[in-house]
């Protein structure tokens, strides 16, 4: 594509012709680049717009949420204070012309308005008369930050005392313990499959991989009975946390693939010096495996934080809900408070976005490791 400037052209018979060709090539390159940009941006809209809509909705006031057609910025009333109370301002057609008045009360199509400058005088106006709008709320662009604390402080069900902060905390507790369990349980197993030669190892490893094929649904009901009835762990975090302290096929596979890349010579040298297998594992292999341990941590967090089926099966009182379950419960109410629902959804998503930006490489690496390689 590019000509190498250090090499002089081989012949310059027709300098003008060469220049023209170069120029047309450059134009073609520029056209190609802008066409690529246009297509990438256009497709990108599909990925971006929902995010934008989520954020915009989260900042909308209640009176703007269901505005049709939807507006791309959050709007809110302009408020005026009368006797320390806040009332929304309306543009009202009165007998003596258009006025900006505060709406004290609007009931069955009739509004009672007052002039904030002169509150004693009341106007009674029909909102609509003969197809004409007589009073219209004055709206201005305003980001309603209050939606976030409002959403977090409300429970999915009133009167239980549990709110979204509790759900947030529950999600964090479960995710934290799941990460600890996953790291503790999977690393020695993966090390054994990578580096300790013992009879039956290969057969067992095939068995590990085979368990990936088993759909969750097959074990779901007996696990439900085991945790709820036999162990009596119903409505606790234990059914969600304890299984992570036993290794799972995905992480064993991921870790084993990495452990196999650590030079065997290092381990052999330690072995000659009399190190035990456990010492080699904890003192040599683990310190060299920080990148893959980070991958496992991030993915376990992602998985535990997002999990919906597990909490749905095992948690049933609102004070035990996770964010995922709380949001679903919030949705199940009769009236959908979309702005608060979106605010809570953002609170639910933000920890993951933060994790992503801190560990972007780890994320992508993990997907590739579990995906395309071997």
């Amino acid at each position: 594509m590019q000509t190498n400037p250090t090499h002089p052209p081989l012949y310059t018979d027709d300098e003008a012709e060469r220049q023209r060709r170069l120029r047309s090539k450059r134009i073609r390159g520029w056209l190609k680049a802008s066409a690529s940009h246009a297509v990438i941006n256009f497709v990108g809209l599909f990925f971006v717009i929902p995010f934008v809509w989520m954020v915009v909705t989260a900042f909308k006031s209640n009176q703007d949420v269901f505005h049709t057609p939807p507006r791309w910025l959050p709007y809110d009333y302009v408020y005026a204070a009368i006797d320390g109370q806040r009332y929304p301002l309306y543009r009202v057609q009165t007998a003596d012309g258009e006025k900006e008045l505060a709406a004290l009360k609007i009931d069955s199509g009739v509004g009672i308005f007052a002039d904030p400058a002169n509150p004693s005088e009341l106007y009674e106006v029909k909102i609509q008369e003969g197809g004409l709008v007589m009073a219209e709320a004055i709206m201005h662009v305003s980001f309603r930050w209050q939606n976030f604390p409002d959403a977090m402080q409300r429970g999915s069900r009133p009167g239980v005392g549990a709110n979204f902060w509790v759900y947030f905390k529950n999600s964090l507790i479960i995710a934290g313990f799941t990460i600890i369990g996953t790291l503790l349980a999977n690393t020695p197993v993966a090390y054994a499959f990578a580096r300790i030669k013992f009879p039956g190892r290969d057969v067992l490893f095939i068995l590990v991989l085979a368990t990936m094929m088993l759909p969750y649904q097959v074990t779901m009901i007996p696990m439900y009975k085991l945790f709820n009835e036999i162990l009596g762990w119903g409505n606790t975090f234990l059914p969600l946390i304890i299984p992570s302290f036993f290794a799972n096929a995905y992480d064993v596979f991921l870790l084993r693939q990495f452990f196999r890349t650590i030079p065997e010579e290092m381990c052999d040298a330690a072995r000659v010096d009399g190190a035990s297998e456990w010492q080699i594992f904890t003192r040599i292999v683990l310190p060299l495996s920080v990148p893959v341990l980070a991958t496992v941590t991030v993915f376990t967090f992602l998985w535990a934080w997002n999990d919906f089926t597990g909490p749905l099966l095992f948690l049933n009182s609102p004070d035990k809900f996770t964010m995922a379950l709380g949001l679903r419960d919030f949705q199940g109410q009769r009236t959908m408070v979309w702005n608060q629902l979106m605010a809570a959804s953002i609170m639910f998503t933000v920890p993951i976005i933060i994790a992503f930006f801190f560990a972007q490489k780890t994320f992508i690496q993990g997907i590739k490791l579990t995906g395309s390689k071997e």
Partner: protein
Amino acid sequence: MRLSSLYSRINHNHSAPVWGRSRYRSLRLGLLFIAPWLAGFLLFTLYPMGMSLVYSLTEYHTRGPLEWNQFQNFINMFSDDLFWTALKNTLYMVVFGVPITLITSFACAILLNLKVKGQSIYRVIYFLPSIVPAVASTLLWLWILNPQAGVMNTLLGYIGIKGPNWLNNPAWSKPSLILLGMWGMGGTIVIYLSGLQDVSKNLLEAAELDGASWFQRLRHITIPMVSPITLFNLITGMIGMFQYFTQAYIFRGTGGLGSPLSSTLFYSVYLYQQGFQYLDFGYASAMAWVLFFIILGCTVLILKISNRYTYYAG
């Protein structure tokens, strides 16, 4: 060839037995290290599998005695209309949803592989939706597709299309879910992107010199060379789709599970309903085993067929 045999020899050395230990001692050591997996396998895989098999062969409603019922659960499935509805809905998603998602994510990967300014930012933008929790993204799309105040139909209105009633029309509920899935296909795009890096540059350049058009290079070099990745994505996508649950559980119109008109009653949703709403553990377990064999059968089938179409370098 020589290189690979050398590699395998090195590899063999790597996994050489720990010298100086007896077979018994190395077995004991190995089992000690894999104890967490072994215990988990017995407790959380083998035991539940066995119990599930027992339940599936019995008349069993949460409590009470297990009663052997001559495969009645499996026989009942044949005459259960909702079972067939659920299976059909799931197959719809597997047959349409999975390939559509695969093709579009491959197209996106090609776009993101173009050398343009800001490439890494575009990659982040395309990827980010895939890490939004399923519950949050499903709620978001419920709101986007809202018939009154939703942004989707407004946007379609700008270009003169009157959008359908996505949520409450049985014909549009599954396409809505496919759309939702496509929003979160960033993982598949990343896997395709990494595959595109492995496509031989030499081959592409040689083809270009020989006058092959962009489309010909795509058709005869790129697509065959990423075919193992397509196979991987196809199988994982298919398995995931057969177990499709969370989005379907959240994504319902104004009615209950599976609404509108059972059009989002997928296999796993119906299984959950049988097990945990009607508390018919026997029937639900039988359904789970049928699901397992459907998935197994489809995987084997895809692998068999793909043998002819998949290209493995080296």
